[in-house]
Every structure is written in C-alpha cells, then in structure tokens.
C-alpha cells in the first residue's frame, strides 16, 4: 500500500510550510517536498509606491528579521539616490546601520538556537513533544532559557537605539540613517546593569558555543551525519575575504571548495543568479546560471558563510572559526547540523562586533546622509541571519517603484531544504511499517537547521496541529490521524 505523509505545519520555524512524503507499496520513499503554502506578493503591491517607502514597507515581510529587509532595501536605494554602495555612505550612516544589523544577527540567532533548535538537542529528536519545546527548556534548563531571553533582549535594544523601534523601525533611509547614537545609549550598552551589557553578551555567546561543542562530543553521530550531503555555498565576503555580514562581494564555492563565483559585484547579480519556478510551491528555486537548474543550486546562511569566507575579523570568533575549519581539514563543511555550530560562531562574532562598534566615535557623528546623482535602478545585498538576501528595485520618472525583485534567504535555501527533507525521510522512513512522531520531527529538525523563514512573522507556541494522511495507490484517503 502506498502512502502519503503530510507534516503540516512545520513547527518551530518562522512562517507556515508543510512537508509531503510519498511512500510506495514496497515502503520506499518516492517523493518528498517542502511546500511553502503562503503567498505574500510584496514584489507586486509595492509597485507605484514612492521609492523611499520601500525600506519601511518591505520589512513587514518578517517580524523576526525585519532589519535585514529594511537594510537590504535601503542599500538598493543608496544606489538609486546616488550614494553608491557601502563606502558611499558617511561613517556615521554606515556604522549605525552595521550596529543595527549586528544587533539583529545577535537577537535572531539567539532566538533560533535557544528557543527553536535547542529543544531537539536537549531532549532528543524522539522526546515527548510535550516537553520538547521552549517551555520544556525553561523548566529543565532555566539558566539557558534565561540567557536566550536576555541575549535576544539585548539585540532588540540595540535595534531600538538605531532604528527607533525593536520591530519595524525606520532608521535606515536612502543614502544613510536618520539618527546617530547618543552617548547615553552607548553607555547603557557598554556599562549597562549586569547582565545587559556588551561584555556579558560576549561571555554568554562563548558559553553557548561551549555548550554546543560539549554536546557535539557526546553526539557525534547525530551532529555529523544527520542530513549530510554535498553542496555549493554562496555568501557575501569582504573584498579581502573576511566574513562581512553587511557589505561585500558575492562569492560561491562548490562542495570541494573551488570558487564558482569569484568575488563579483552584486549589482550584476542577474548575470549570475537565475530562478526556477516549480508548479507545486510558491517559493522559487534560485541557481547559478552558468551551472544550470540541475547543478547550480547552493546553500546560504551560517554554514555557507563560514565555508566561503577566509577569516573572521574578530578575535574570539576567529579562534572558533579555525576550530570549525580544522574539523573538515579546511574543506567545505556539508554537515547539516553544523549549521548550529556555525550560527553560534556568528553569534559570538556579532557580540564582538557590537562591542567593537560601540567604542567607535563615528556613531555619534551628525553627518548622516549622502545624496548623489539619481539612478533608476539599484540592488541591495546583505547577509541576513538566514542567508544572502537580494533586493532589487527600478523606479520610474516620478520616483515610483516600477519593479521589485526580492530573493530572500530562505528562497536561496529552498533546494537544500528539499534535499534535507528527502535525505532524512529516505534514511528514516524507508521500509518502516509505522511512521512515528519522532521520525516526523526528524524531518522538521533537518528543516529547522536552516532556520527558515517560510513566509515570515507567523509564530505559534503550544499545541501545534500535526496531521498525517494515508492514501492508497489510487490516491484515496484511507486513514488520517492528527494531534
């Protein structure tokens, strides 16, 4: 009897998605798909709006990483208002944006690791779902849960100081920023009451990394082999090869570490990136044009960033980066669960960057905006917590948005996530007479490693519905169970 298994919704991720797994009458997994079942339409409905509204409009895509969309749009508009890319901004403009961005990274990564991912690690993939959640973490590992909450709070306060609000602020404007950082704000972050200060955040980020490494030692099989498959990797890097989450050039490597996109200008991304449409998903499938739809897919996000960059420009994160790279003898790391490791190294890097930036007097400058010769088109690229984020706008003669194309991080990871689902389903469900809750959670664990934002801003806590439907070979429903 063939069966179709549906996991809907996928839980502890941002947004709403579902997984379908088809199993034939011999028990073989024949087809797996991660479906994105929401439709947002931002690219269309912002057409006609004045271009300077874009950073505030498009950030509504997400409640977790609005800063990423805010900044990617602002960077595209920097080009349109003639401020150029990156270096064209005033030091205050660029550094305030960077501070906002690293605050965003810090809070988002903390949220993901402590609240979304850690229940699987702390309690096990097969654990009772009644305890395998953030409340379970809070009850059994109070210190860890409190740290997660306060790390997120610190990041959110940084965002508020730079963007005006913790969620959906308006700090970045075309050509710069609308406020600087006051001395009082700086002091509150550097000398704030324990534990809400930059030194403590660096310490806690290191502690989270130590926790993961200890866990890794005890669970090598799970961490190294779960949903492992070779892939290409893509991210921004600084021109000298350093990790840079805010600005740089576009680099991609293949599974052996060979450069397949060699530090190119992202303004020309349309020459290198294309998107495939498949009829069963609202989410497109990007690929490197020169390698084609079949071979051109790639991973983005923390794992990809640590694979593509040459070094990390903060000392503590650089030491961890060296350990990370040594683990695979310098070769690209293709282990899905190492996303968590990479994410925690980035969390530490973000904390160090925040501390470093807070000591920079440029944050208090009054020269906030750069305006130059108007352009009709601009591309903004940024490394969002979940991966490389493209924003591309064209305006008409009346300053209205005429065209928008957004390739969000999770879209870039669409093919890898589908492969991860297939990998786990094939290895865990093939030949099994009974599909257990633990098996289905394993599929979710693979998806969760990518920290996807499936449609943004849909969050739930508690008793999430899960439905399994069994179909016969004629696709007729024979049984359905839900919880």
């Amino acid at each position: 009897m063939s069966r179709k298994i549906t996991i809907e919704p996928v839980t502890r991720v941002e947004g709403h998605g579902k997984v379908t797994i088809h199993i034939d009458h011999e028990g073989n997994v024949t087809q797996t798909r991660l479906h994105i079942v929401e439709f947002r339409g931002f690219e269309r409905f912002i057409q006609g709006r004045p271009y300077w509204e874009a950073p505030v409009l498009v950030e509504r895509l997400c409640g977790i990483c609005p800063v990423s969309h805010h900044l990617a749009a602002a960077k595209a508009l920097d080009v349109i208002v003639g401020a150029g890319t990156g270096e064209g901004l005033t030091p205050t403009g660029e550094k305030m944006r960077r501070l906002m961005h690293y605050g965003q990274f810090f809070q988002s990564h903390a949220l993901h690791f402590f609240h979304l991912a850690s229940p699987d690690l702390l309690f096990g993939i097969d654990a009772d779902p009644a305890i395998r959640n953030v409340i379970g973490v809070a009850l059994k590992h109070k210190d860890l849960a409190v740290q997660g909450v306060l790390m997120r709070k610190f990041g959110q306060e940084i965002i508020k100081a730079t963007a005006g609000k913790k969620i959906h602020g308006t700090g970045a404007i075309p050509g710069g920023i609308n406020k600087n950082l006051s001395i009082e704000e700086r002091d509150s972050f550097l000398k704030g009451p324990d534990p809400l200060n930059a030194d403590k955040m660096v310490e806690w980020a290191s502690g989270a990394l130590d926790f993961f490494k200890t866990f890794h030692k005890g669970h090598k099989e799970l961490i190294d082999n779960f949903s492992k498959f070779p892939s290409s990797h893509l991210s921004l890097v600084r021109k000298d090869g350093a990790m840079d989450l805010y600005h740089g050039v576009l680099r991609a490597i293949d599974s052996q570490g060979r450069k397949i996109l060699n530090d190119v200008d992202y303004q020309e991304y349309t020459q290198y990136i294309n998107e495939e449409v498949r009829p069963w998903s609202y989410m497109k499938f990007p690929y490197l044009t020169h390698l084609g739809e079949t071979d051109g897919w790639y991973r983005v996000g923390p794992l990809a960033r640590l694979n593509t960059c040459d070094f990390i420009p903060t000392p503590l994160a650089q030491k961890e980066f060296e350990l990370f790279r040594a683990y695979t003898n310098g070769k690209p790391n293709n282990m899905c669960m190492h996303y968590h490791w990479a994410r925690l190294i980035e969390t530490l890097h973000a904390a160090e960057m925040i501390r470093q930036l807070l000591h920079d007097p440029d944050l208090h400058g009054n020269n906030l905006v750069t305006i130059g010769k108007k352009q009709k088109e601009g591309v903004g690229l940024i490394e969002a917590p979940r991966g490389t984020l493209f924003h591309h706008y064209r305006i008409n003669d009346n300053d209205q948005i005429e065209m928008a194309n957004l390739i969000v991080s999770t879209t870039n990871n669409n093919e890898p996530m589908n492969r991860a689902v297939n990998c786990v389903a094939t290895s865990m469900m093939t030949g099994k007479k009974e599909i257990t809750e633990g098996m289905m959670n394993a599929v979710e664990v693979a998806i969760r490693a990518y920290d996807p934002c499936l449609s943004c801003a849909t969050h739930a806590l508690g008793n999430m519905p899960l439905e399994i439907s069994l179909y016969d070979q004629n696709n007729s429903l024979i049984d359905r169970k839900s919880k």
Partner: protein
Amino acid sequence: MSEKIAFTIDGVTCKGEKGQFLVDAARDNGIYIPTLCNIPGVNPKSCCRICTVYVNGLPMTACSLQVFDGMEIINDTPALIEQRKIILEALFVEGNHYCPFCEKSGNCMLQALAYRFGMLAPRFPYTFPVREVDASHPKIIKDQNRCILCKRCIKAIKDEKGRSIFAYHRRGNKLRVHIDPKLALALTDELAQKAMDVCPVGSILVREKGYRVPIGQRTYDKMPIGSDIEVKK
C-alpha cells in the same frame, strides 16, 4: 481691549474673549476639544465634525462657533466620545490608511485621535477604494489613499498671488483633492514642506524626504494628542 465673557465647559467655569472660536477659548482654559480639519488662524469650515459639542443642549461644531456669555458646553461625555470614534472609524474605512509604513505615522492627527479615543478596530466594513498616487509634480506627491478631504491644504496653501494650489475635483464619493499642475510647478521648498505639515494625515509628501524624523522624536510619540493643552489646566 476685547470684551471678556464667561462660560462653562462640562461644568467648569471658563473665561474667554468675545469673538473667539470655542476650540481656541477652550484651549486657553486648558480644555481640549479635538479638531481635525481646523487650522488656527484660518477660517473654519466644519468639515470633519470631530469637534462637535453640545451647546445649551444643541450639537454644534466648536471650531466655527464663537463663544458668548453664559454658554453651557458639554464636551466630555461617553456619548460624545463614541460619536467621535464613529467619525474616526468612518474615515479609516473610507480610505486606505496603512499606518505601519506611512511617513506621517507619529505625526498624524487621524492616528493620534484614534489612539486618544481608543479606536481598536472599526465597526464598519473596509471599503478598500482603488485610489492613485499622483507623483507627477516636481516637489510633492499626493497619495489619495490617505486623503480625508479635510480641505486644510486648500485653505492654507496659496501661491504669492493668493491662488489655491489645491482644489476639490469631482463630487460625491468621487470627490478628490487635486493639485493644480501649473501652480505646482512654482511651489517653493518651503511651501511644499508647509503643505506636508498642514496635511493632518500622510496624503501630501515632500519628495525624497521620507522618514527623516526618527521614531521617538515625532509629535505624538511621547504624549497623546491634546495633552499639551490639558497640562495647562
């Protein structure tokens, strides 16, 4: 010296000057009567009716009513607050007011009044009208989605010869505020900014200047609308 008169608002004895409009006299006495279409110094038109109060038992608009001796005014009752909420809710559903991305958010009188009167969700169905953004003028953009037809721009924004740059166009539910295309060409930066400032919502925008005022520094970020008047009480 102008003649002094006495009147009461909600039982509180107030003093004013003969010929003074009620909203102004109330303000001088530390009492806030909400207004939306009214601009101090410009002849009132009573367009929006948000300032309706009861004067000796009769409903009247406080922006256009001059005070007189012995007036007994009712301004703050649950029924009047409800009536003001209804007007606000009608204005919200009649247009497309997306506060979250509006440049005027925090400086918007309509939004501020909605907060003040505790509007959570409108009781009327949204109409979602299809309205255009007129971006054809060199200095300003007119977003018809947000226009509440209050007439403030028509009354307050004139060129050096006293001609109105804004005017009503068409009638009924097709009524719009349009910009005279020739006069708009002669708009100075100062007058364009004044047009944006005089608009109580985000319908008139100065080009390329959006979001320059950070959140936290906008008019109604720290205190609700009217509280600056009430602190004088």
